[in-house]
């Protein structure tokens, strides 16, 4: 279908990251990840578990930022239960990244030297525990060389090189499934788990992606286009999930 915005293409690419996850907790952090996960749940992944962002597992899918009424609560998931779920491995998180490198190391801690940073960010949050315990993906709405860097200043989320250095035992639950940016989709399905260009969003080019990426990217001979939303997916995104259009404020077409 024509007429999908870049943000809507991103929403579908994010939803695809959660395909075949099964009956586990999906934790999408940020507006576009929320939209993508809700889309997955309303279409091909109805079994995934999601919270209301506070402490409850919810059985229904509410419009983002505009709840139409109280959610249907199907379970209780305070932070303590979230941590238990993280460590049990039955979770897939999609986090942001202030910096990410070619092996998927992520930084949300600080920019510069840790002892006296140029810019203090959130802190480690749950990134170390998430990445070593269960599947992780990343959403990056502002693809640039400031984010896709040769080396992150602080490793919050563990990448494939760091995981490999721990040995097979400690790294056996580590998986970075997907990186979705406003330009393209990436994975780590290469022999050394270096980041690979998986698909290009319609309207972008390999050259544009390479120009905005600060490290050598694995680029296959032929790069497919990111799947466009179906009519039904567009309807769900526009009418059901994000009627306020928050997606187009995060990613401009």
């Amino acid at each position, binding site marked *: 279908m024509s007429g999908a915005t870049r943000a809507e293409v991103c929403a579908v690419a994010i939803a695809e990251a959660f395909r075949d996850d099964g009956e586990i907790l999906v934790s999408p952090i940020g507006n576009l990840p929320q939209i993508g996960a809700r889309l997955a749940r309303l279409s091909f992944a109805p079994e995934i578990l999601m919270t209301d962002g*506070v402490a409850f597992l919810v059985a229904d899918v509410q419009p983002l930022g505009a709840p139409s009424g109280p959610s249907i609560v199907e379970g209780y998931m*305070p*932070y303590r239960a979230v941590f238990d779920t993280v460590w049990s491995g039955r979770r897939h998180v999609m986090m942001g990244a202030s910096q990410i490198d070619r092996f998927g190391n992520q930084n949300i801690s600080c920019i510069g030297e840790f002892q006296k940073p140029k810019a203090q960010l959130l802190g480690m949050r*749950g990134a170390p525990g998430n990445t070593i315990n269960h599947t992780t993906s990343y959403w990056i709405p502002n693809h640039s060389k400031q984010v896709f860097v040769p080396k992150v200043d602080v490793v919050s989320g563990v990448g494939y090189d760091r995981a490999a250095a721990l040995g097979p035992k400690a790294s056996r639950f580590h998986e970075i499934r997907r990186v979705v940016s406003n330009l393209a989709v990436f994975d780590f399905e290469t022999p050394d788990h270096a980041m690979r260009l998986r698909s290009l969003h319609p309207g972008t080019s390999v050259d544009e992606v390479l120009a905005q990426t600060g490290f050598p990217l694995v680029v296959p001979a032929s790069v497919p286009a990111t799947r466009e939303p179906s009519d039904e997916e567009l309807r769900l995104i526009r009418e059901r999930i994000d009627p306020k259009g928050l997606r187009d404020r995060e990613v401009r077409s």
Partner: protein
Amino acid sequence: MDKRTTAAEIVAELRDGMTLGIGGWGSRRKPMALVREILRSPVRDLTVVTYGGPDVGLLCAAGKLRRVVYGFVSLDSIPLEPHFRQARQAGSIEAVELDEGMFQWGLYAASLRLPFLPTRAGLGSDVMKVLPWLRTVRSPYQDGEELLAVPALPVDVAIVHMNRADVRGNAQFLGPDLYFDDLLLGAAKRRFVSCERLIPTEELTREGSFLTLRIHRGMVDGVVETPHGAHFTECPPDYGRDEAFQTEYATAARDPEAWKAFEQRWLALDSEAEYQRAVAARANGSLQ
């Protein structure tokens, strides 16, 4: 068994250099009345252990802290805490930055009187690099797996804010999440609860299910009623976050002159009662 006390008496227990645990999470159900009392006191060089929010920011701005032990410091609706950032970027505080699950494990270990608890969280990350004193431990069983040994995080004094309590220190949370307040009290030598409302013991189970009674009097040394005492953080169902106030706080933090004015207006007041009167007057003013 009447454990009623005052904010001033609680803060008088603090000595320079002590480790203070603060309950809540981000900008949620923080014992802000007690934090404001600390701001009025001469105590300094504190180590604060917390899932950090504006409590950390205010204590940083007042120069009360030597070290912060945290997994994050955030105002939730405003992701980054401005005063904490300034303190970090000035290099004026020592940062013990942990994965937030490691942080829980540290409190839990302390509450169980264990030297450490093992986990995978932190392995391979720079938590191990920026805190070079962290150690790993090898499983003594056949698997032989190497795990991170999170050291216990004992605290000298813990303060938490609850919705209800009785005079004996039985305390109740009525919001969606206890966070880790019970573990924090367990990790502490001296344990204090501030609450929205003191009620007779027999009313506790009328306010909420028995599942909300996670802090009993054996875990608490003193209790004080501080209505609206979590302001400007949220304390549901009693009240939500004062977003307008929080925005004013965060905006003022960006400019030294504006911060001076904010301090004069809100923090230089002589008592919590005066603060609450000023907050109420502000809310009434904004309604007109």
